[in-house]
């Protein structure tokens, strides 16, 4: 048992019916290269499943990806279930094809940041490094 530096643990998840996970995989890879431990859940997850998995994995952040327009329901649902389970210390951010008009609403609902297509990977990684700290308690 050698004390190690706490690592950031994140989960990359695809809620809903949209079956395109290329973006999510690229993000997962970028996170790995930044030195994070990345749990990938795969496609077609319900918000409840994502929250349950995030708790079991003790992640510091959940990154949600949605390309099919259901983000307005799915992203806030994840935030709500986290609250219900007493795990709202886990940061939620999202990305995908998300109209500008929706971004503020998602943020109001508790999604901490939203990344739209074209955002450089470096910017996303930097955001995580600055906004998500490994659990210290």
């Amino acid at each position, binding site marked *: 048992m050698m004390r190690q530096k706490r690592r950031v643990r994140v989960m990359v998840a695809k809620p809903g019916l949209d079956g395109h996970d290329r973006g999510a995989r690229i993000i997962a890879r970028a996170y790995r*290269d930044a030195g994070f431990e990345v749990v990938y859940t795969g496609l077609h997850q319900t918000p409840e499943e994502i929250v349950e998995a995030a708790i*079991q994995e003790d992640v510091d952040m959940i990154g949600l990806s949605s390309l099919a327009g259901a983000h307005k329901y799915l992203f806030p649902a994840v935030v709500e279930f986290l609250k219900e389970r007493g795990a709202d210390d886990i940061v939620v951010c999202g990305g995908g094809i998300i109209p500008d008009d929706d971004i503020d609403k998602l943020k109001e609902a508790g999604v901490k940041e939203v990344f739209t297509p074209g955002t450089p990977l470096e910017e996303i990684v930097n955001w995580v490094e600055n906004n998500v700290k490994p659990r210290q308690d």
Partner: protein
Amino acid sequence: MSHIVEKVVAGDVRTVARLIRDIDDGMPEVREVLKGLYPHTGRAYVIGITGAPGVGKSTLVDQMVAHLRKRDKTVGVLAVDPTSPFSGGAILGDRVRMQRHSMDQGVFIRSLATRGHFGGLTQSTRSAIDVLDAMGKDFILVETVGVGQDEVDVVRSAHTTVIVVIPGMGDDIQAIKAGILEVGDIFLINKADREGADKTLSDLRLMIDMDQKKYDRGSWKPPILKVQAVFDKGITEFLEEIDRHAEYLATTAGGLQTRGTRDKVSQELGEMIKARLIEEVIDRLTESGDFDRAVESIVKGKTDPYTACENLVFPILSSSP
């Protein structure tokens, strides 16, 4: 500390999840918790599953969970994936195949990265097994890519060790056999609908039959089964073989009671002493600055690493050989 023990024993998922991370991160505080948990361990049946990447371990584990749940058994899963040696990060993707169980309160799935720790993977995985055991899981499935001594040790510490191969990887079996073939209690040929399954079966059988004398003396003879995990074919028979192996362990020396055989306990204690000693010694040497000073003088050519090592270690042991 004691409230953490109570919460783990009561099966609190969040407490268990956090504790496993603290173990993985080597937080010294967890030692007291692990001491408190120990009396609650020794009840779970641990199955180690190993094989090369892509042979279908995660899919197999997913099916095993489904079958065990049908038997009303609770299940803990530890899925180990490699850490990138370059960034220290890891993509833990085993869960993808098992997510259908994530809402099932009788199942706890945790992904672990191998990280860089020397001997540490074995230690931390074993402690994580203890936590899931204390939490009350009936079965604990540990999945690793069987590369490297650490990972072999992890699966060896299981009650039943399962080696998964696929047809057409003849050379792969060769590669595997030096390290891990000896430790298999059950061999699975997954994706058995593929060409070459029978050839793989006969290759394996030949290898296993070479130890016939051992089996004649009463040793366990590893069965070889053809399965197709993704189609749920052969899994029932596979679990029956696990039952049979458990029965064998229960009726032979040591049995499965609590911590298994004397051999396993002494191996575990030995490794723990090793890891703890190294940790304490290195901690002390770094804190006092002696370590850095020694590095400095080796770099400057004032001494050699052999002498430096002795000068550092002997005073700590307070008696030289």
